[in-house]
């Protein structure tokens, strides 16, 4: 274990806490100091709950002192994406619409973190209602990439990825509708996992697109992600789409990391045009390492992935337009009374509030979705998109008959500069091209760092995809590859990130 507690992995912290060499108050305090020092520059957090985190840390230390049986991650702090409701702690989803709202209940995931005794450091920034790939659509300003503060940390979960990469938390939660866990992980050289749809409860997670949203773990190592995955996952009777089956053995798989004899498929369609050369090069090297480790590699074709982006941008906004309808000023959140209207009606207050409360990307998607669901267009748009969705699931099924896991680059490019794609929504959307198929089919996927691209020195990510309910395969491959890559690099990749000026 290093002297700097914020540079230590969650697994090592858990060990240190368990054997009494460190206390949760020490760890939590170290992280709060780090946050105070660098988050001014990074802006990964929207809300910091130092008091709450320390209270949990003290309670865990006391319980440990009297010999209570505690969860493996008890006392290890965590950052929570602001899309998960937290009782008594503000939850904004990066939107003005929920500014000042204090939820009266906890998301199931948050309840599980609390039950495990994990101090919650704060709530992380995100694109408004998880709509975006850069956090530039947060109403509270973007988060910045610790590798280059002028660049995006990915999105929508750029708050979580940036706090991990800048050592402001050892673990974080994320949600992934089209890549919001994996693409931020890729551009910050951290780990992000989108579990099988239904593997982690969605109860209390403010919905973007219900049939695509999935919460998952974010960390700096594959094992850390697995440990958090095990806390977050499992059946929840409050979520009808939650899978009622035993959790895949993700921690065991991460500890073993043995890929000998495993069949790995390279998705032909997720390469080539549009993929940055440095990203492709790191991807190819990673595949070569896996072969060295004893895996078999084959190329597989998923011909319908071509239509994934188009289908996604019909299904996601359609569901979003309906999910976001509840933000109407009647019961909670922002309320704007229109000026120059005498005795405004409820409808006029709703309209004025939604006009003022939603940012441009949210409005764009609400309009898209409203249109796609309209009578007369439904079959052509939403209906066709659902058919494409079935075809993509069929592509995955066929591929998984040939191989055990699939791999691809996570995102086609490294982190772009803040502002670069803000005026070109299509360019922003295309950043999700490799991550979207997993959401459409409900299969699990992981992104882990594959190195730095030669042309810009910025992190590149590799994506691993597995069949539904076989999440452990992600960890098997991820752990093996991570170990081999660190051997090549000589140290974890984040050690190469620039030091952030304190108090910036």
């Amino acid at each position: 274990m290093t002297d700097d507690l914020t540079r230590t992995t969650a697994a090592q912290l858990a060990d240190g806490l368990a054997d009494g060499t460190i206390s949760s108050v020490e760890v939590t305090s170290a992280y709060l100091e780090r946050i105070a020092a660098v988050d001014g520059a990074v802006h990964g957090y929207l809300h910091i709950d130092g008091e709450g985190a320390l209270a949990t840390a003290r309670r865990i230390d006391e319980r440990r002192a009297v010999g209570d049986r505690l969860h493996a991650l008890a006392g290890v702090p965590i950052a929570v994406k602001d899309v998960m409701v937290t009782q008594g702690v503000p939850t904004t989803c990066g939107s003005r619409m929920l500014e000042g709202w204090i939820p009266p209940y906890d998301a199931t995931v948050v309840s599980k973190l609390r039950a495990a005794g994990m101090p919650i450091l704060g709530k992380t920034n995100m694109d408004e209602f998880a709509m975006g790939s850069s956090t530039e659509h947060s109403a509270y300003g973007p988060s910045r990439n610790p590798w280059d503060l002028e660049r995006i940390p990915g999105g929508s979960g750029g708050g979580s990825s940036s706090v991990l990469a800048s050592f402001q938390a050892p673990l974080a939660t994320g949600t992934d509708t089209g890549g919001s866990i994996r693409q931020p992980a890729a551009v910050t050289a951290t780990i992000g996992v989108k579990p099988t749809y239904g593997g982690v409860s969605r109860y209390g997670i403010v919905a973007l697109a219900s049939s695509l949203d999935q919460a998952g773990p974010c960390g700096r190592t594959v094992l850390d992600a697995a440990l958090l995955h095990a806390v977050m996952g499992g059946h929840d009777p409050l979520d009808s789409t939650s899978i009622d089956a035993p959790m895949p053995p993700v921690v065991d798989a991460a500890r073993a990391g043995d890929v000998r004899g495993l069949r790995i498929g390279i998705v032909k369609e997720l390469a080539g045009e549009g993929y940055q050369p440095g990203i492709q090069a790191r991807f190819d090297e990673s595949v070569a390492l896996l072969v060295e480790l004893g895996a078999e590699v084959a190329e597989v074709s998923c011909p319908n992935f071509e239509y994934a982006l188009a289908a996604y941008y019909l299904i996601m906004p359609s569901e979003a337009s309906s999910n976001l309808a509840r933000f109407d000023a009647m019961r909670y959140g922002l309320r704007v009374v229109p000026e120059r209207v005498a005795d405004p009606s409820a409808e006029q207050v709703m309209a004025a509030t939604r006009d003022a409360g939603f940012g441009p990307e949210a409005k764009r998607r609400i309009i898209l979705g409203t249109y796609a669901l309209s009578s007369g267009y439904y079959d052509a748009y939403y209906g066709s998109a659902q058919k494409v969705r079935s075809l993509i699931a069929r592509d995955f099924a066929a591929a998984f008959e040939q191989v055990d896991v699939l791999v691809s680059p996570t995102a086609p490019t490294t982190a772009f500069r803040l502002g670069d794609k803000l005026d070109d929504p299509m360019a922003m959307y295309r950043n999700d091209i490799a991550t979207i198929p997993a959401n459409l089919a409900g299969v699990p996927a992981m992104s882990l760092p594959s190195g730095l691209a030669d042309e810009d020195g910025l992190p590149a990510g590799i994506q691993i995809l597995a069949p539904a309910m076989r999440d452990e395969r992600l960890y098997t491959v991820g752990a093996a590859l991570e170990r081999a890559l660190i051997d090549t690099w000589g140290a974890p990749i984040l050690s190469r990130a620039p030091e952030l000026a304190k108090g910036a």
Partner: protein
Amino acid sequence: MSVTTHPGDVVMDYDEALSKFDPVLGLEVHVELGTDTKMFCACPTTFGAEPNSQVCPECLGLPGALPVVNAKGVESAIRIGLALGCEIAEWCRFARKNYFYPDMPKNFQTSQYDEPIAYGGRLDVELGDGAIYRVEIERAHMEEDTGKSLHVGGSTGRIHGAEYSLVDYNRAGIPLIEIVTKPMVGAGERAPEVAKAYVSALRDLLKALGVSDVKMEQGSMRCDANVSLRAKAGDDPRGAQQLAVPLGTRTETKNVNSLRSVERAVRYEIARHAAVLAAGGSVLQETRHWHEDTGVTTSGRVKSDAEDYRYFPEPDLVPVAPTRETVEALRATLPEPPTKRRQRLQRDWGYSDLEMRDVVNAGAVELIEETIAAGASPTAARKWWLGEPSRRANAEGQDIVTYAALLGLTPVDIAELDQMVVARRLNDSMARQVLDGVLDGEGRPTEVADARGLELVEDAGALEAAVDEVIEANPGIAAKIRDGKVAAVGALIGQVMKAMKGQADAGKARELILARLT
């Protein structure tokens, strides 16, 4: 001839309307299920609780909350479908019906759209004269109720002109079943009567199923009536000539919340449409509001193609896929069909066809059944319910069940009244006075009898003395009886009763008089 009944609305005389047009109806009935908890969360469903005391993140539509289907609600829906002779879907989904309204927490209603749980059934409805009309059922589907808005200030209690509105979300998420008929054709002039009989029969059926308390006055059963007219063709409303005429434009009348209103609202809309069409106008496709007090409908929202609910399958819920074994197990729990049940009850109670029809038409079958169960004889139960309570309910424009519920008159009261007659505490006219007292809210029958001092005099001496006095005072009549004109005894009995201030047993008086004079 046209009669103006409301500013702006002209209606045609009903008989004249029916001589020119053929009415077609479509009824949509919403029933609140009597489940302990809401359709998609675990909140209780108790009626009349403190506003917003039965709510949670889900039924308030808080960010992040998710629905979970109430299994009992699905069971009830299947049982209703089966009782209506419907097919039960092997696989169906909920859908979101998207529109903005302050009393709808999520701004979409979780309902069913093109995949109802039950479809294609029928209900045979008996009319007042015993004729049977078959209502074809299009579908029965599951959905959730909305909250309730209370508009404060302004004169109308409507949203327009109100100073502010209060919303109670206790009702939001209560399970509803919507039962939709196919177009009801061929009823001709009896259309309003058929509509009422259908809603009544449906109410009986749902009550027998035990799935709802079906209280129209509390809104747990609500009816929307679609009415359209088409030109009359031929003399037979069921004839091929008539059926070939295309349907006219319909209006949907909402807020029709009593059996009597169903009949009146349909009748009104027929007369209103007829006037519009006869004047060469066209009926506007719109929602109409029924006003119980004035007996007219007024224009509500204009319904047009612009209203687009953007239905799509509810992604937060998994499909409902009842196994055939489940469906058959639920079929086995169905109660006796109401028509068969009526035949059985008529037999058990020994009523004539006419008597039974009177009971059915009065809507008093269940009341009488419960009264008999509480100890009254079938004859007494029928006599008392179809007497004063029925007369008063009619005068108030209410059905007997609603009226009795409003007054708090129960089957146990009637049985208690009957018991007092059987036990010779009251005679018939005294019992009538007691019933009046109960209906006037003076208390339970025994309390009323006590308070009014109504009690048959059991003191044989007093009665005998009265008989002796009356015989002595009426020597002429007494002589006639002695001469064998026994019919004259009535005059003496009347006088004895008068002397006893009504509190005597007329039968006993007769016995005593005859014993003395024959």
